[in-house]
């Protein structure tokens, strides 16, 4: 999130798209409803009418996988009707920058495309620069080569008719949403966007969010109280783990090195640079963060002479994609022998479950660390498996639950909060940190005894997190904050003296010369000599905004709204004084922790507000992504229409394809004529592992179901409550049909497209009559940038189950069942016809 949960409560307009906040983020929804209570408008755009739609002032439907046309249409609308916040756009974005003449876009492809590699050479996606290296600009925005004009040209194709024919959203509904959200382009009107997996889980997931960010920049809603682009993260502390590391990054979003960067000098040569004296370019500090990280990893063993142990870090092969889908593809192809699975249930959560489950059977060993037995740890006795023929040796280590251990947890709003242990772990279960510690000590012992191919990364690791064999979470958190490793007589930042062994105040004090350590620069400042900032529980807000700086600790530097220097005009006065986030009082900033303490850009020594971008401004033209500098619509891998109405490129040209024996796909195939989409409900959690063992939650949502419209039910002879079979090219599952007015067919490119909605909470293990995972149906394909699987749009069929109906025992207690098995009322004709 750019902003915070509490801040949603002051918004004038909340666009919830790609999210079912009411069901999956009930606490976020609390703040949404607070905003509504104060007169704010809730807009919900979603393929299904959900519990969120039920609370919205405006609900609009759209076909899964068509967010870019929907949002692209809004960009066109804002530009055409000149509803943008011009001062903001001109000063704080790259709208005026001149793009290289060699840049081009034709028929769905940007310049530099290589069809064999399914990848772009991005050499032409650059700005024209002057002799100093500063981008050339045209502040009149008239130059046909400037970002504004290129963007206008790009989205001119996204007219209402075209957008409506792709999304299936009636034109009047599109206009209603565009009109309403566009009102937030005024300085004193602020709109926010809330999204979740409905935007990310597509082959164009990253570009969905780019499109949203562009709108928020055009309307001047980024950095503002009640504004921003806000990801509601789907798992507690998933923000924390993202901040710590992912497959392609080291802690704190430092790029993971590859084999071509064989030493620290080469790694540091990739540090973002700027020639513009008005750009802060905070990423220019990266060498300090990698040096401090290596010192934290390897301690005394890390010296200037040995590149602080950089050589001991694992490196990717050049061009290697180590994302989730690739990992399971390699596992399926027998290239991985072992797998440690910690706190997840891929046999149910990963797409194309049959492939995933078979991949597990090709391992030599698997260590599964979890609270309970699950479909992954017990894959070998699952449906279609013959335990006698499976070689994988499985170890299930019992983990402690969240209330049985102490530590920090980071919410979507980047706020880390300290949590205390309520009771000791049950039986032999242990906290994750303890398990990893014991595993490491054992591995180290084996390496020390027997050597091995490359023992140094293990043996040279500094590992002092345990006292008497017990991991101390405070010690780990201090390590993450970072220490001064030597006495510093005069620190270059504040000229003050710092003692060896004391905690650094925050990441501003980190050094590239090995005199500081830091486990993750973003969290530096969270546990320093003032104490554990994450344990703070003071509910005092700042006077003019609904943010609470003394509650927990938000990275970076306890900033609650990032990019907040864009919430003021170039002289430092808030665009919206009623909801001021920060203000320049003539000598310093007051309010939230400013996005850098430098003066506002119009004053002497002033700087641009977007400090993480080398050019200091936000990117309407974003050359950093794999699939283009402007979001462009491509259909999902499996879709119901033969041709993309916007270009000859049906699917995202930069998305890697999988072509193994179980990677089956079918598009516009009469055997699978309906669009499938997966989602969660309030009552279950992720694959359901923590909820399917819980009788009260199983009582509320007992069985796998699928939602379908009255029209589709009629077409297929399905009645509400029937057991049905849902199939895709990859497999089939049973489900209970929920025939509902909340699902409506889409009128797409003059054809009727039906939707089948599927929760993904169930698994064969428990409850016994609950059904299996809907990921048996989903395809192995991911986003071009992140690799997140396309769970939200694929093709299925649905039909009445052929085998005899399972005998339903009448419930003796439910004698007085006045309202059992409600049949949905047929909608009036005006509703069904689009």
């Amino acid at each position, binding site marked *: 999130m750019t902003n915070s949960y509490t801040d949603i409560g002051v918004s004038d307009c909340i666009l919830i798209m790609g999210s079912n906040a009411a069901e999956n983020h009930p606490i976020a929804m609390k703040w949404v409803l607070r905003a509504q209570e104060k007169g704010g408008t809730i807009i919900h755009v979603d393929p299904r009418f959900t519990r969120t739609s039920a609370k919205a002032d405006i609900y609009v439907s759209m076909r899964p996988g068509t967010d870019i046309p929907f949002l692209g249409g809004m960009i066109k609308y804002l530009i055409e009707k000149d509803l943008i916040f011009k001062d903001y756009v001109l000063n704080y974005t790259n709208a005026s920058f001149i793009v290289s003449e060699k840049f081009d876009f034709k028929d769905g492809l940007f310049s530099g495309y290589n069809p064999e590699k399914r990848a772009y050479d991005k050499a032409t996606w650059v700005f024209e620069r002057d002799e100093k290296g500063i981008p050339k600009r045209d502040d009149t925005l008239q130059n046909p080569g400037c970002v504004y004009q290129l963007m206008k040209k790009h989205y001119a194709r996204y007219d209402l008719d075209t957008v409506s024919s792709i999304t299936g959203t009636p034109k009047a509904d599109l206009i209603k949403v565009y009109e309403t959200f566009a009102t937030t382009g005024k300085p004193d009107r602020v709109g926010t966007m809330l999204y979740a997996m409905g935007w990310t889980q597509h082959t164009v997931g990253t570009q969905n969010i780019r499109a949203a960010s562009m709108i928020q920049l055009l309307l001047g809603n980024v950095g503002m109280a009640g504004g921003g682009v806000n990801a509601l993260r789907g798992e507690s502390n998933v923000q924390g783990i993202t901040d710590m590391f992912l497959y392609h990054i080291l802690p704190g979003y430092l790029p993971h090195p590859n084999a071509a960067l064989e030493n620290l000098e080469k790694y540091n040569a990739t540090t973002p640079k700027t020639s513009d004296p008005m750009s802060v370019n905070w990423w220019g500090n990266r060498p300090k963060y990698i040096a401090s990280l290596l010192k934290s990893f390897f301690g005394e063993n890390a010296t200037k002479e040995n590149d602080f142990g950089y050589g001991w870090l694992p490196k990717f092969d050049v061009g290697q994609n180590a994302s989730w889908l690739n990992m399971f593809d390699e596992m399926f192809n027998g290239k991985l022998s072992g797998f440690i699975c910690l706190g997840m249930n891929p046999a149910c959560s990963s797409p194309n479950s049959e492939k995933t489950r078979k991949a597990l059977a090709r391992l030599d060993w698997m260590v599964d660390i979890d609270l309970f037995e699950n479909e992954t740890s017990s894959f070998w006795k699952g449906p279609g498996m013959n335990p006698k023929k499976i070689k994988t040796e499985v170890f299930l280590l019992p983990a402690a639950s969240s209330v049985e251990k102490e530590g920090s947890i980071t919410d979507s709003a980047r706020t880390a909060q300290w949590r205390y242990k309520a009771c000791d772990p049950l039986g032999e279960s242990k906290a994750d940190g303890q398990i990893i510690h014991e595993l490491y000590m054992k591995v180290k012992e084996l390496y020390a005894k027997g050597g091995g191919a490359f023992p140094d990364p293990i043996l040279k690791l500094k590992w002092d997190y345990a006292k008497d064999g017990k991991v101390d979470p405070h010690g780990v958190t201090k390590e993450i904050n970072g220490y001064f490793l030597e006495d510093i007589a005069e620190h270059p930042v504040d000229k003050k003296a710092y003692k060896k062994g004391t905690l650094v105040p925050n990441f501003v004090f980190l050094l590239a010369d090995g005199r500081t350590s830091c486990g993750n620069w973003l969290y530096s400042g969270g546990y320093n000599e003032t104490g554990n900032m994450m344990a703070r529980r003071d509910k005092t807000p700042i006077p003019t905004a609904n943010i609470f700086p003394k509650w927990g600790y938000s990275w970076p530097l306890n900033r609650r709204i990032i990019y907040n220097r864009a919430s003021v005009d170039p002289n430092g006065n808030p665009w919206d004084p009623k909801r001021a986030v920060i203000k320049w009082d003539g000598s310093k900033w007051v309010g939230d922790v400013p996005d850098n303490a430098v003066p506002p850009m119009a004053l002497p020594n002033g700087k641009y507000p977007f400090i993480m971008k080398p050019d200091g401004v936000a990117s309407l033209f974003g050359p950093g992504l794999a699939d283009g500098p402007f979001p462009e619509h491509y259909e999902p891998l499996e879709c119901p229409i033969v041709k993309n109405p916007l270009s000859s490129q049906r699917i995202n040209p930069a998305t890697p394809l999988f072509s193994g024996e179980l990677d089956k796909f079918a598009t516009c195939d009469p055997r699978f004529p309906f669009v499938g989409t997966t989602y969660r409900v309030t009552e279950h959690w992720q694959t359901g592992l923590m909820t399917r063992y819980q009788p009260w939650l199983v009582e509320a*949502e007992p069985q796998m179901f699928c939602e379908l419209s009255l029209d589709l039910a009629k077409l297929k002879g399905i009645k509400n409550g029937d057991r049905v079979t849902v199939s895709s090219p990859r497999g089939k599952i049973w489900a209970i049909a929920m025939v509902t007015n909340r699902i409506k067919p889409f009128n797409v490119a003059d054809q009727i497209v039906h939707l089948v909605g599927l929760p993904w909470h169930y698994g064969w293990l428990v409850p016994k009559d609950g059904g299996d995972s809907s990921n048996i149906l989903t395809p192995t394909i991911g986003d071009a940038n992140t690799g997140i699987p396309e769970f939200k749009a694929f093709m299925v069929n649905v039909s009445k189950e052929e085998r005899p109906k399972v005998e339903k025992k009448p419930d003796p207690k439910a004698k007085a*069942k006045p309202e059992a098995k409600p049949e949905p009322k047929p909608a009036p004709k005006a509703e069904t016809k689009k």
Partner: protein
Amino acid sequence: MAEGKSFFVDTAKCTACRGCQVACKQWKNLPAEKTINRGTNENPADLSFNTYKVVRMREEIVDGKLKWLFFPEQCRHCVEPPCAGMADNPAAIFKDEATGAVIFTAKTKGLKAKEIIESCPYNIPRKGKDGTLAKCDMCFDRVQNGLLPACVKTCPTGAMNFGERKEMLALANKRLGELKKVYPGAMLLNADDVRVIYLVAYKPELYCKYAVASNSGFGITRQMALARMFRPIRNIPLRLV
């Protein structure tokens, strides 16, 4: 005006997360019912001896537009509880004077269950296997110890509220005023007669069959009227059996 405690249930803020339904079972340690998906999210199908609270989820077309209406159904703790009048046995059903909670004890086993159930204008009490009657008790044990009822404590959106009756009525009227601006048909349901005051935006019968007091089949029966007429003033035991 009656004092004591009251709930205010703002259905405009209810997202049917069903946290209240589950929190109720958790605090009361009530077993889960064996349910199946009946083609609706709503489950269990009805209140029962082991289920004191069910969130009703209704898809309705209002003025040509789809609405999904949520209604956490529970005992209303009537200001003048007909069930207590019908039972005419404070050892079995009594009203706690301090809070106004209507409490069923194990002694309900000795009552004519059908009569008690039929006396309820909201169709709330349910009979167990041995004839004992059960329903929501306002989390009497929690409230006596200064805690909120479990369902209120767990509600994430502010739909479930609990406090002094005066405060709840004030809050209810404030929210009614706000909601009326958007939904002219908004209303409070039987606010004068019950301690669980619902605010709805549309016609109450769309939310739940027994959203408002039923006029037919329930209400004051002859037996009840007689029972009331001859009811002696007794000391109401505060002890829960």
